[in-house]
């Protein structure tokens, strides 16, 4: 039973409380009570904010629902609070002055819907760089189509984030060294020391949430895979689970097991790639090359098993498209065994390389208190004491059938971020080894044609290599999606990123960036 029901102060404020999913209740609060209810959840129940977003009320056009989703703790389930707002320029009191983690979500609500979280200190210039778009709220149902006209992109004009004598302002990006994603950093430094970094994201905003509104769920799976190509399986898994929950669709046991196997394969290659990137950032060329060799071997394994290097086109609603025959299972077992052997040797060598460790140790520290305030997720959170993992806390797919531990560290520095990935790779290999003998014969997908009743909604989540991802789906008429909300892990972790380089020196910046292993594509959608 959800402990929120026992909290009288809170349950009095809740109206129409209902179960969205097992262990997940949703209730309406008055706009005036929203901040109080959120703070009570956060402070009294140790809940952390997972997501905040808005949507248009299906029954009443022009009315919007603003939703705040909290996770209550390891065994407590989830709570979603929503409030209704009306009018041409609706507003409600912002939560972010009390709960810092809501900051970016509220900025997104403002730009996407024109709903003003009153009291938020910094609204606008978040997603859109273009002055012509200032009164265009794309996720409103009345906004549609391609905006052909419009002025040029407004390049960052905001003054220096920090003013003072000797403060040097360094703009970096969106096009900068090497093969890198389009992000803009505003670095304020004094001498060697970095005072603050302001990342400007959403250069890569591709309007996925809006695009999905004209698609069938089957088609949107392909879109979910491309939120971030390298964590496509985790994203599409969360989306498929949301849709399956919505349609009350059973996934065959084999499908659940295979999903777990592929999700772990994705984690392994991503973590190895992240550690290799970290070597690259410290100019340890041979070390990086060894890591990329391992990564390439795993990508090739993915193709041999599924036909795609990044596991795209594997997930479908109701299960997975591919089965693993006997040879493929044997190939998977052998390749993993070899990769693990070489991985251990590689890690051992890295741990014996002082020049490498010196660059990581004590650099880019995120303290547990900040990590909690910012609601960090994934390995980046787990090195700062955030002991949360959807796989263990709310098991999905076949995670309840396997034994594994979730490594949690307290140091919060670059070295710990490498260490946690290394430990997670070991765990993931263990998980796959446990699952392989249990893979039964059968069909990998439920091929029944699901029905999607209009007005139904559901939530799905998964723990990807970069952290927990959360998808909400509302269905509309004709089996088309009405609203798709994605809360990718990078959106949360980018928000927390500026905390880490604070006070470190200039040349540590790329190392800290690599140690976070964040993706702009995933954040921007």
């Amino acid at each position, binding site marked *: 039973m959800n402990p929120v029901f026992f909290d009288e102060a809170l349950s009095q404020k809740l109206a129409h409380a209902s179960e969205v999913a097992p262990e997940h209740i949703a209730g309406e609060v008055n706009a005036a009570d929203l901040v109080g209810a959120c703070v009570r959840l956060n402070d009294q129940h140790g809940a952390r904010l997972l997501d905040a977003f808005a949507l248009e009320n299906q029954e009443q056009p022009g009315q919007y629902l603003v939703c705040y989703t909290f996770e209550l703790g390891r065994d407590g389930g989830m709570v979603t609070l929503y409030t209704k707002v009306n009018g041409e320029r609706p507003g409600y009191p912002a939560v972010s002055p009390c709960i810092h983690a809501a900051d970016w979500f509220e900025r997104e609500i403002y730009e996407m819907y024109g709903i003003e979280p009153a009291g938020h200190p910094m609204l606008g210039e978040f997603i859109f760089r273009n002055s012509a778009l200032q009164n265009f709220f794309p996720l409103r149902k009345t906004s549609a189509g391609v905006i052909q006209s419009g002025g040029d992109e407004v390049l960052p004009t905001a003054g220096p984030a920090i003013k003072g004598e000797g403060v040097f302002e360094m703009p970096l990006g969106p096009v900068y060294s090497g093969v890198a994603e389009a992000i803009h950093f505003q670095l304020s430094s004094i001498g060697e020391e970095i005072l603050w970094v302001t990342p400007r994201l959403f250069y890569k905003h591709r309007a996925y949430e809006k695009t999905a509104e004209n698609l069938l769920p089957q088609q949107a799976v392909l879109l979910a895979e491309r939120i971030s190509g390298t964590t496509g399986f985790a994203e599409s898994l969360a989306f498929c689970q949301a849709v399956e929950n919505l349609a009350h669709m059973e996934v065959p046991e084999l499908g659940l097991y295979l999903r777990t196997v592929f999700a772990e394969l994705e984690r392994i290659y991503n973590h190895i790639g992240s550690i290799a990137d970290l070597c690259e950032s410290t100019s340890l060329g*041979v070390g990086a090359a060894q890591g990329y060799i391992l990564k*390439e071997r795993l990508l090739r394994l993915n193709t041999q098993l599924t036909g795609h290097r990044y596991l*795209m086109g594997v997930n479908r609603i109701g299960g997975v498209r591919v089965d693993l025959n006997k040879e493929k299972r044997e190939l998977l077992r052998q390749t993993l065994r070899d990769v693990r052997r070489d991985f251990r040797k590689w890690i051992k060598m890295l741990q014996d390389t002082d020049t490498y460790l010196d660059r990581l140790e004590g650099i880019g520290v995120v303290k547990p208190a900040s990590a909690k305030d910012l609601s960090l997720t994934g390995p980046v959170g787990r090195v700062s004491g955030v002991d949360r993992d959807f796989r263990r806390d709310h098991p999905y797919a076949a995670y309840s059938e396997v034994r594994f531990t979730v490594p949690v560290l307290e140091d919060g520095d670059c070295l710990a971020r490498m260490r946690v990935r290394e430990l997670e790779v070991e765990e993931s290999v263990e998980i796959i080894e446990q699952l392989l003998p249990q893979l039964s014969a059968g069909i990998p997908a439920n091929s029944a044609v699901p029905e999607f009743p209009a007005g139904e909604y559901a939530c799905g989540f998964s723990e990807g290599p970069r952290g927990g991802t959360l998808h909400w789906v509302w269905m509309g008429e004709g089996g088309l999606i009405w609203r798709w909300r994605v809360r990718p892990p990078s959106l949360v972790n980018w928000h927390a990123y500026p905390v880490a380089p604070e006070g470190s020196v200039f040349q540590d910046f790329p190392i800290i960036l690599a140690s976070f292993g964040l993706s702009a594509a995933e954040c921007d959608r």
Partner: protein
Amino acid sequence: MANWVLKGLATQVVTTRYPFRREDDIPGACSFTPSVTKDQCLSTCAECAEVCPTGAIRKSLLSPDAPEIDYARCIFCRQCAEVCPKRIISLSKRFELSSLNDGGGILKEAGTANKVRRLFRRSLHIRHMDAGSCEACLSEISALSSPYYDLNRLGFFFTNSPRHADVLLVSGPVTKNLEQSLQKTYEAIPEPKMVIGAGTCAAGGWMAGQNYACRKRLDSLLPVDLVIPGCPPSPLTLLHGLLLALGRVTK
């Protein structure tokens, strides 16, 4: 450091010999490609075209001609091969997917093309620009520098400054927020210069020009010389595309 040198030496050469040797048989180097294997097909069936989410397959219901796949729009979801009742479309390991388009690039005119190819034949500096890709393209492009593909052996180099570059390699559908950056990067590259689009998004597929955030296709903004299909294009496909642009492989 000495142990890293030894480790590097002890790791045997893993680099592919492509294009000097055919490499169709490397297991798993390329995602599977739907290919049309027969030239006759059922005249009453167009399931492949119906199931294709991006409209990359053209199939007439009136004639028994086999379907045509436009790889520039294909996102390699492999559903067509799954539904094809006669296995006319099947999955292959084909990876040489690029073709020289007759777009507005400098390779269009035979005279310029030869001059450019002579200039860049042995050394080509590439400035990559991410114009909104989903990161899979990015991962494959950076894999070109990894030991397995090692593009430097062919005289290709990634360069940090557009002023040192000969070719602009664009991935992603070109988001509105990056249109201006793309234009500026292009202008900063000295003449003669080429533009290569990598991946289905840059080739004008699915996302491009479809919504408020991606309003123009790459080829309507810049003169594109070559598109490399793939979602994402695997490293060998990228290598083939680059070599094709320089005339170092034919077809």
